[in-house]
């Protein structure tokens, strides 16, 4: 087998560099969460667990957490289905393959802070193009950002537009690096496209699918600038997600200690949730047969 002494050469440089950069900020954040650092009192005093007890009773945070679950799960699920379908469509030879492949990647390459401003202009109910189109078709205008349900849908549309390419790229690369033999074998067995997909493609794509879903869930959950630009959490609290709430408490109100407690809790909950989700996904996707 491989020479085991060499294994450190591979892993350690990356691991140590990462630890060197991230360890201080991480520990510092945990420490801050036990302090009362805010706008009038900068510094690391000892505040005990009071930030955490306050959080426990903070309805807005827990509601924002639930909302986050809804927004993140729905947008990532949509991105996965759409991204996978598109990847399958441009996987094999089709006309203008390169054009489609590159075009489908472009939304991901835009800067979210700026692109969301453009989306806001698109959703603008009296000056934007979307309602203009809808009215030209003779349909009633949609209050995109000004009712609770439509505001959430608008948010998901922007997320899907921006990040489906991420799924698409990852899954397309996965498809393109699949070995050929299983497909040839399936063809010899006389399997149709549907059976080939479920029996061959899906199982082979399972690890990369799980990887893609997990990383997108992580990223989608951090949604913050998009919310700020589109709706600033409104109407009411309809689009106030956990990370946006942390942003408001942390940087707008400068309650650093409290925001740190929220962040640490968020981190722990996310790690637990993602571990469970990864296990469930693995069970569904890999052990199905």
């Amino acid at each position, binding site marked *: 087998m491989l020479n085991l002494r060499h294994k450190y050469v591979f892993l350690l440089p990356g691991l140590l560099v990462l630890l060197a950069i991230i360890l201080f900020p991480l520990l510092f954040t945990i420490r801050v969460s036990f302090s009362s650092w*805010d706008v*009038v009192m900068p510094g690391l005093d000892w505040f005990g667990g009071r930030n955490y007890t306050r959080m426990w009773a903070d309805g807005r945070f827990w509601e924002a957490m639930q909302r986050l679950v809804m927004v993140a799960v729905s947008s990532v699920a949509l991105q996965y289905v759409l991204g996978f379908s598109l990847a399958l469509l441009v996987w094999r030879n089709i006309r203008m393959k390169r054009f489609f492949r590159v075009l489908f990647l472009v939304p991901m390459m835009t800067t979210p802070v700026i692109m969301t401003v453009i989306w806001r202009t698109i959703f*603008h109910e009296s000056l934007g193009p979307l309602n203009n189109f809808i009215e030209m078709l003779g349909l009633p205008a949609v209050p995109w950002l000004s009712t609770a349900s439509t505001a959430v849908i608008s948010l998901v549309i922007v997320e899907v537009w921006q990040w489906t390419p991420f799924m698409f790229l990852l899954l397309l690369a996965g498809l393109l690096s699949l070995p050929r033999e299983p497909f040839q074998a399936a063809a010899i067995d006389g399997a149709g496209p549907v059976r080939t997909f479920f029996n061959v493609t899906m199982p082979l794509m399972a690890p990369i699918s799980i990887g893609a879903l997990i990383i997108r869930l992580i990223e989608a959950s951090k949604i913050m600038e998009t919310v700020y630009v589109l709706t*600033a959490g*409104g109407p009411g*609290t309809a689009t106030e997600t956990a990370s946006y709430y942390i942003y408001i408490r942390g940087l707008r109100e400068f309650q650093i200690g409290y925001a740190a407690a929220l962040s640490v809790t968020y981190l722990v909950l996310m790690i637990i949730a993602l571990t469970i989700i990864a296990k469930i996904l693995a069970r569904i996707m890999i052990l199905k047969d």
Partner: protein
Amino acid sequence: MRKMLITTALVALMAPSMVMAKDYSKYGIDKDVAGLCSYEAIDAKDYSGRTLSIITHAVPVMGEPTALHAKQFGELTGAKVKVVHVPFGDLFQRIMIPFQTGQSAYDVMFYGSLWIGDFNRYLAPVPEKYRNSKAMKLVTPNYIDVATLGKQMIQYPIDGDRHYLKYRRDVLENADLKKKFKDKTGRELQVPATWEEYDEIAAFFNGWDWDGDGEKNYGSAEVVKRDDLMFSAFISRVAGYAKHPDVKGGFFFDLETMTPLVNSPGWVRGLEMFIKAQRFMPPGGNNFGLGDEIFSFGGGQTLFSYSWDDAFIQAMEKKSRIRNKVMAAPLPGSHEVWNRKTGKWDHFDTPNRAPYITWGWTSAVAASSKNKDMAFDYLCFFSNQANTPHDLQIGRFGVNPYRSNHFDPAFWTEKLGWDAKVADSYVKTLSGMDDSKNRVFDLRVPGVGQFMSSLAAGVSEAMAGQKTAQEALDGVAREWSRIVERIGKERVRDAYANVVALEDNLR
């Protein structure tokens, strides 16, 4: 009489500049005006080899004049001046993080004056020579007050901001429309003096094309987007109901007990009116930020708007299709005013108006700066009497009148070609706010961000129908009590006492 005196004073001030040797017209100014930081005085200074760091608002509002005068300052003194431009929503943290971590990042800061309660301990007081300068003596009392904390001036006045009403003159003066309105409501169509009248007129002019351009028009454009600047719009709407001219001792809190007053009936009435107003806002109007409000009123879509100058200035831009079709007026008030001392609504025959001396752009020098001399010279130069008239003329700069000699209608008609009536309404509205004895100031206390953000969250919940006005404001009051507790009752009270002193005209 007063105007004549000012004009005489101006002429007297300008006289020496006529014989000045050096010509600074290449900087775009009419002529240099002698003073502490005139072009000539600054030209005589030598700051070569030194660097001045400035943080300011995004281009162009405030950002562009900051950069323009920074460049001029650099050329005149030899200093290297570096400017960074930041959107308003991100400005606070960008300044606060270096402050709190002891990093001396900027010498000069331009920011919203309501943050004085948080920033004051990191700011350098304005030295006496600048406070006694001729240019400073002309700054109106409101803006001296805004710049001052207790007895100390720690912000450098460079702009005047206020909320006032803007309306479409072509509608309110149109005989046809006046008749239509009277037929429908039985009342004369007039500039609204109360929020109830505002509502009635806005409702009537909502949802149909009254300017004949083929697009629907609407009643009212307001800043309603949560975590944008909605809290200021809300305070404007509340002031008339909740700021009783004879009840002293606090508008946001009862200064004695530090009990929040946000859930008192005056505030609740203001919120109920705000909720109702959503019906005559343009589509999506309950998600309008300041920029949307400016486009909506300034672009000719809506009849009414109130908040900062921007929408008015946008409407009066050279290429605007509603140029000279807008007018300014004081914010509406109310016949009914809540008296928290007696626990009753008091009736006023003349509507009670409480001008809200809204926070606006201000500037300051960091206490940690190693270039305080240069920094104050820069601010003094920025606002010298040659630059200000220049900046006032350029709408996108966002510099609005703040010296007594700015309130001259002739300036706006001659320099900018405004219609005389428009200029007159603008100047009268603005200067009128200085004469009021029933002013409302911002909550200039430590943690103002927390107070205002929880207020906005509560108001927004009520606007979205998640809670009633009373429930929402009760929630805000509870939250405010907790914030006071966290920050320290005495600390908040001490700071708030300064605000109340201004409001109660104790100085």
